[in-house]
């Protein structure tokens, strides 16, 4: 199972699930980290934590511990185009 914290810099993925039902997960949901959303790993802070990610056109800093709740499938790097539609997502998710 691939989680968001395992992505390399510049790598992209699609969120498939967020584990946990506590306020931390609720907060991540609110910020739009939902299944089907593309995410991109921008990089890590100088002391390796927190991480900078891009989701819904916003740069967010989140801690590794919280990123481990975010299950994803990798889709490629920033240079590769994002999947155009949700149908593609379903295909790429199923392929994993």
């Amino acid at each position, binding site marked *: 199972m691939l989680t968001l914290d395992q992505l390399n810099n510049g790598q992209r993925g699609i969120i498939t699930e*967020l584990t946990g*039902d506590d*306020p931390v997960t609720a907060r991540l*949901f609110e910020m739009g980290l939902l299944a089907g959303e593309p995410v991109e790993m921008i990089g890590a802070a100088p002391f390796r*934590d927190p991480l*900078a990610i891009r989701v819904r056109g916003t740069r967010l*800093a989140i801690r590794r511990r919280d990123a481990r709740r975010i299950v994803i499938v990798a889709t490629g790097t920033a240079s590769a*185009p994002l999947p155009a539609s949700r149908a593609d997502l379903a295909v790429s998710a199923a392929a994993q």
Partner: protein
Amino acid sequence: MTTAPAAATGTRPLKVAVIGNPNTGKSTLFNALAGLHAHVGNYPGVTVEKKIGHLQWGDRRVELIDLPGTYSLCPRSYDEVVAVNVLLGRQSDVGPLDAVICIADASNLERHLFLLGQILDIGVPTVLVLNMWDTARAHGLAIDVDELSRRIKVPVVTTEAHRRKGIDGIQGAVEQVIATTVPQPPRLFPQAFYDECAALEQQLAQHGARDIPWFLRERMLLDEVGVIERQAVEEVDPQVAFWLAGARRRLTEAGIRLPLMEAEARYRWAREQLHGVVEAPAEPVASWTDRLDRLLTHRACGLLIFAGLMFVVFQAIYTWAGPLMDLCEAGQELLSGTVASVVPPGPLRSLLVDGVIAGVGGVLVFLPQIMLLFLFIALLEDCGYMARGAYMMDRVMATFGLSGKSFLPLMSSFACAIPGIMATRVIENYRDRMVTILVAPLMSCSARLPVYLLLIAAFIPATGYIGGWVSLQGLVLFAMSSIGLLVAIPVAWLLKRYMFPGAPAAFVMELPEYKVPSFRLVTYRVYERGLAFVSRAGTLIFATTLLVWAAGYFPGDHTRHHELEARIEQLEAALPAPATSETDEGGTVDVEAHEPPELAQLREELNLESATLIRESFLGKAGHFIEPVVKPLGWDWRIGVGALASFPAREVIISTLGTIYSLGGDVDEESTSLRDTLKRATWPDGRPIYSIPVALSLMVFFALCAQCAATLMVMRRETNSWRWPLFSFTYMTALAYIGALLTYQIGSRL
């Protein structure tokens, strides 16, 4: 569920709230609408800042209420509770609301419509403002504003608040939305959820809680262990918790995961509204923010630049504020001189000069530092760098239970804890904010420096190491400046663990686009913070200083003292020349050498008289009273009084010690004579009072003690309770005493 416009006509001012996500330019928009006519205060009982602007739209007065920036109306923090209460018209000191202006970033509408969706559920007349319209267009976005407005049934205005463009459109939109009825909000959630809400309403009504609005009942169900649930449990019936648990269990069994349900429904709604309305380029335009970030948050370069920037900021606070502070002090002296020349020696003059001018001046002298610090904070915040600092420092702060957002407030406290505590407002997590406020006064502030400088110069030998590159005096100064920080780490950890326990909050922080800071907003911030400092801490520290003055002045008989003062002034006035004069050879010669011997004798007598008076005063009596307490620290009653008198402001110890040691009140850390007097001071049996352990114990005491009334007052204001300043005062005084005791007892045995 819809609220009728509360004040469509009449002379009551329109109440309009401004709400939006952080980093949307909300403050800029608020200032563009309200200008400088804003009143800043606190909501009763909470730490949330209440800011109300007064403006005039035609013949209608308008009260513009600035709500804290928030991503969601799920009430988790006090900020969010206040925002929800204001929007629902349940905040009694604000009253019913007429309209809401929801400000959103035009470049990132999908995420911002999440908040709008929640606001629409409340049923207040709403206007959507798409700010940063220029940036959106630069990013290649095309938005069909009319179509969007038609779909969400809310007037939409586009603005560029930093250029004051589009601001005029807001008035018309608000007036329009107040005049029309509020449309039914869309029902986005499954029917099973609404059924549970209706059942909850009945149960609450049976227990006498009929006035809980629909929105809050929804939130009660949605937000597990949320603030609304807790309030209902406390105010309505403890059983509410069981009803809610039952309802949530039934919904979970029906396959509904509550927090996910809300987010999914709202984001789906947002995407549907925007489908075909927003045309975005296939691949987002590569922004220069990403390129800048690669450098500014780089493992090595990022940290180096950060350290360099912090160094420049603090260097600037010390050096740039210097001349301004000198100016304040010069002004203070000039004023004291003027008063002294008009008012004859006596209690009135002492009250004015030693009490009022010295007290108020002692506060005002920090104003330049505070304004400079806030200038830097406002600049760094507005350009977007502050979020990067918090991002880089988060890992370090996490080791003792805080987050990156605490870094800057703590760093600022090295200059002065007052702006540091005020800067904790950026921390939205209540527990993190409280812990940061409570440890901030431990950071070695600039007011401790004079004390260190005096004692180090007097008692620490000027030994050099490594060929003179490292001096023992410098090392001691460094050690004294770090001691508070080192103590703060376990204190923060303990506070977090035992006083503010709880599950760690999610650290989710937006890293906004970099931008050129807005001049108007930055100057406004500096002005606002400066004013808050002067008007509140100023009046309170003034009162405390007066108290210390009175304790040091009464009940002694000052007749002889005032006679001496008057006689000295007469003699001085009779002296022909200024203090120094040019001789023919071009050198200067000290004129005091030519003074009549009577003058020197009178001065001597005055100093002795001052010493007697302070010994006999309430303060001196208190000193003798506490001598048994301070003796284990190696101190005599004079140091005890000095420490006691410096509780309102720690620098006071220098002038107090000066006074006590028969020098009169006018000594400073550069005064060699005070240094020498300290070295000569002895116990009654002839042993010198000051040894290295005594000096160190005194410095450790000052490093750890909460000797600053202004800080405690600001703490009271920021936490809205006397409890926390009292707590800080107690724990820091205890720490200081134990620290000083250990230092002296161990030091004197080595």
